[in-house]
């Protein structure tokens, strides 16, 4: 548990922050200065209502930063999760060597027959190896809601009966599955949202051929964005003969992966790359996830600078408007430290409010929002849902607190350095 927490700088930061909060609370409870700080903070917070307009600048400014940051990170997280969920540790994918993705791989008929004979593959009730040779191609289909000429690309997977045994998460949710040997298709739930005419009973054109959509399937991962047909018929349409793109196998045990991989690589008749599907799909998502995250952080940083200066402005004004009050406190014996702490706490409280508000907005507006992109390593539109996770909300709160900390520090220092006599004389 602790190891997991320590695996990133952010987690470390969180732990330090928690310790600081505990120390601060103890200090405020136990020491004289701490109690002073607590009472000054109380006064500041109770007068917040009089400074509602100004204080809302801090809250709304930070809410904007956190909202946008969390929404963009949720996009990268949703994309990553959709792809990595597609894979599992107990299935492996075999492709021709040095192929960057399934669609670029070609396995000839001989390889496709050899691969299922390797050690380590689980067997079904009839004793056959659970190995699914598949063909992955693209198809142009009209986009839903677009003009007649508006076509998009969808990934078409030609599968055999073992595809279902390899991927138990795939379920037919409407209609029926395709009949082998016929030009029939089933469409993923995500694909039906992106492309027109993917309803059971409808006919669609692939090139010059007419195919019938007979069912809808759902898997909850990136396969949802695909359409499936019988491998043999798809191979005919795309003139691929007996070749396939990949063979996905269910391992009898995740531990047998190494043996399975070694067996295939040692076979002189084969030139293939073997990977667990978990690893394969995680790798596919890496680049895009990083790009979206980098965009999120860049936009967030620029917005944070804007919000930070807004917070500075507000807190300087707050200090100025309370100059006499603060000077009075100092005159009757309050030290500088409690004043500094009080102003910092007030700013960070506002920041926390902003962070929570921004996170809440991002969650309300974007959690589960579906987006789509041309995914790296596939040849079709991949739809995925934005995922606002607890971790992302926590990141948002940390950003908010950081902005609040810096935004409160300088005004607090100024308040503590305020010359008592001049401040008292001010009107």
């Amino acid at each position, binding site marked *: 548990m602790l190891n997991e927490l320590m695996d990133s700088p952010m987690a470390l930061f969180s732990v330090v922050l928690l310790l600081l909060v505990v120390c601060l609370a103890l200090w405020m409870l136990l020491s004289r200065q701490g109690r002073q700080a607590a009472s000054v903070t109380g006064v500041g917070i109770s007068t917040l209502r009089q400074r509602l*307009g*100004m204080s*809302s*600048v801090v809250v*709304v*400014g930070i809410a*904007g930063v956190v*909202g*946008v940051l969390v*929404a963009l990170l949720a996009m990268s997280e949703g994309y990553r999760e959709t792809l990595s969920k597609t894979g599992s540790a107990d299935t492996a994918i075999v492709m021709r*060597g*040095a*192929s*960057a*993705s399934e*669609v*670029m791989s*070609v396995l000839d008929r001989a390889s496709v027959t050899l691969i299922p004979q390797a050690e380590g593959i689980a067997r079904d009730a009839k004793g056959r190896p659970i190995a699914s040779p598949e063909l992955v*191609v*693209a*198809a*142009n289909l009209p986009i839903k809601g677009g003009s007649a*000429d*508006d*076509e*998009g*690309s969808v990934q*078409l997977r030609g599968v055999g009966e073992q595809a279902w045994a390899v991927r138990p998460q795939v379920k037919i949710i409407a209609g029926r599955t395709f009949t082998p040997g016929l030009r029939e298709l089933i469409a993923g739930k995500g694909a039906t949202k992106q492309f027109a005419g993917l309803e059971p009973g409808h006919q669609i054109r*692939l*090139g*010059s051929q007419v195919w019938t959509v007979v069912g809808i399937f759902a898997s909850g991962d990136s396969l949802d964005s695909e359409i499936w047909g019988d491998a043999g018929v798809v191979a005919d*349409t*795309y*003139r691929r003969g007996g070749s396939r793109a990949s063979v996905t196998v269910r391992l009898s045990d995740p531990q047998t992966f190494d043996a399975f991989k070694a067996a295939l690589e040692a076979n002189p008749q084969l*030139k293939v790359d073997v990977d667990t599907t978990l690893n394969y799909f995680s790798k596919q998502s890496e680049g895009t996830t990083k790009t979206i995250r980098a965009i999120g952080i860049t*936009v967030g940083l*620029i*917005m944070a*600078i*804007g*919000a930070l*200066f*807004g917070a*500075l*402005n*507000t807190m*300087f*004004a707050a200090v100025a408007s309370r100059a006499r009050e603060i000077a009075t406190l100092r005159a009757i014996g309050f030290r500088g430290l409690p004043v500094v702490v009080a102003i910092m706490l007030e700013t960070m409280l506002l920041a926390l409010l902003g962070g929570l508000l921004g996170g809440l907005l991002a969650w309300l507006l974007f959690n589960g929002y579906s*987006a*789509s*992109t*041309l995914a790296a390593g596939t*040849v079709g*539109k991949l739809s995925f849902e934005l995922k606002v996770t607890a971790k992302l909300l926590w990141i948002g709160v940390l950003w908010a607190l950081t902005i609040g900390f810096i935004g409160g520090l300088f005004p607090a220092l100024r308040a503590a350095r305020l010359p008592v006599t001049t401040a008292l004389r001010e009107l």
Partner: protein
Amino acid sequence: MKYLHLIWAALFRRKMRTLLTLVSIIAAFLLFGMLDAVRTGFDDAGKSAIGAQRLQTGSKLSFIQTLPQALDAQIAQVPGVKSVGYANWFGGAYQDPHNQVFSFAVSDNYLDQYPEIDVSADEHKAFDNTRTGALVGEQLAAKYHWKVGDKIPMQSTIFPQQDGSKNWTFDIVGILHSKDKKAGGFFDQMFLLHWKYFDDSTPYNRGTVGWYVSRVTDANQADRVAKAIDALSNNSDHETRTQTEAAATASWMKQLADVGLIVSSIMGAVFFTLLLLSGNTMMQAVRERTSELAVLKTIGFSSHAVMAMVLAESVLLLLLGGVLGLLLAVVLVAGFHAATGGAIPMAPVGADIWIHGLVLMVVVGLLVGALPALRAMRLNIVDALAGR
């Protein structure tokens, strides 16, 4: 104009506050400039004058399906087609399968379709005469430190050679320069090899072509020519789909991301915050100066003049911050473009972004100034001077 110094003085009455507000405004418009550059980059991709004269013909089935090379001669005969070239996706990668290179196996006349790409006559000739020759974009060459004369290994992630090896070797014979740096990001990343050599060397291609690129004599006839090209293969097993380059690129960009929606959501959040933030600054500024404004009215400034001055002050504040922010965006976008080698479509901050930006500055300035200006206009001299 004659009140400019007065407005300026009022604006910098509280230097600290104005400067802090200015930084916030700069940040907002910096973001606006950068995001609008990305949005324009996506919108404008493929929209060049030459691009409108170019047609792309691919398989109707899907973009990964190939077409017979025999179509070349037929397309060349279509009335309105000036010339036609073709290319195949080579799927090259350098050193590691994940270092993908935009590599195409192209027909001998492929470069003739792209007059906006510059290759010196000698290098073009060297390419024509070298079977294993390759032309590379200048940014790509710079990235991997390739020079003319280098022999480089390249993996194809799709096509093995006759012996089953996917390692190919090419001689770099020339460097491609795009004439229009603004639109040329992609050309500077390209790697071109001979289709003939490619087709002879791999058993997997067998005389097929990925797509055809044709130039039409008259861009206005492009749609008609596109239909005529598609009619060539109607009802065959290799039906085609022909689009102008602009339409094809726009379709890809749309599938890549709904950039417009993302950008406008972010900008919505940014400008809402900005409105509140600078609105507050102006409110404070006017509240503080109540007695000064009353003095102005006392000595004869009309209510409307006072209102106009407050409005001018807030517009000036927004313009100052906004222009600085956009200037910063100009520098950053240019730097970003150079750093990523144009991998992300990002237009330079040009005239239209400036116009958008300036309109936004004035509108936000007026909105922000409206309330304080009204307050200043309605100010009752006696009450204000008495501090009531």
